[in-house]
């Protein structure tokens, strides 16, 4: 009898334990699928997208070259506002104000290019759960450029 009960208990733990692992993470808003860490096609930076209020923002969390030629952390030296040229580039919000429109599309936002200090209108399309088409344009969306970003998995803590 005891062996039977133990077997049932172990089976239940295995079954429900597995089920809870396989369940996808619940998301409050379908637009939240955009939240995560993404890598642009050139692999020179990583962008973390978060939600603030009802809109989505992406900030630089990693740079392949975090420091300038003098060894100091890079700042947004091309910012049109001279008072903000001291903003750290690592941490800079280069994607701003994106609103989920349904059908895997976020728009109404802007994309900032720190290489020249220019801001472009932006549209984000999620082609699959791990791939984004980031389209930047001025004026007409048809005339613009699209970059493909890939989702990165969050690092886990290394066991000491």
């Amino acid at each position: 009898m005891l062996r039977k009960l133990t077997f049932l208990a172990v089976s239940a733990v295995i079954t429900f334990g597995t089920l809870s692992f396989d369940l996808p993470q619940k998301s409050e808003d379908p637009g939240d699928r955009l939240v995560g860490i993404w890598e642009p096609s050139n692999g020179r930076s990583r962008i973390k997208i978060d939600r603030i209020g009802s809109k989505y923002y992406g900030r630089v969390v990693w740079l392949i070259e975090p420091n300038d030629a003098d060894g100091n952390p890079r700042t947004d030296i091309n910012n049109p506002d001279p008072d903000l040229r001291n903003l750290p580039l690592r941490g800079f919000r280069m994607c701003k104000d994106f609103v989920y429109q349904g059908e895997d599309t976020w728009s109404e936002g802007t994309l900032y290019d720190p290489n020249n200090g220019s801001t472009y209108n932006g549209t984000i399309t999620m082609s699959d759960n791990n791939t984004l088409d980031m389209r930047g344009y001025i004026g007409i969306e048809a005339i613009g450029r699209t970059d493909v970003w890939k989702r990165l998995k969050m690092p886990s803590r290394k066991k000491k």
Partner: protein
Amino acid sequence: MFKFFKTIGILAFSILLVTGCSGPGEIHEYSVSDLEFSLEGPLFAGPNSEQAEISIDIADALGDAYVEGMRISDARLKSATVLPNDSLGFDQVNAFVVSFASDNEDISMQEAAVKNPLEEGAAQASLNVAPDAELGEIMEEGKVYVVLDADLAEDYWDGNRDFKLNFTLELTIK
């Protein structure tokens, strides 16, 4: 010919009337104290972000001076100070940035103050404000998101990091 000058005259008078009535507006200071931010661990080296929500009620802020229909026409950040709100102080913090945002799709987030780098051993951080950052439209929305970015030098796995923000806005009210 007379009709033409009459039309121009009426037009000019109307413009004068409108601009004369609208005036430059009155400037009021609006301060927010001890706005708490808890950056939830684990935290990774680099920028970590947290948001707080405030609502600006100008009727409440102006008290008896408030007249129905008054609105915020412009807002600038005058000062911003970050203080530690835990025993760790500013340990391993390289920089702070404060930004403001709203839910309105037509209004963009604005960075408004930065401290980079942070002085070693500082008890508080007085941020350098960007006087040209126009915050009027965001403040006019009423519900405002205040975003604090803290740049950490190293990963922090042992809990949260807590900070407080004090800031003062100059609101132009018409």
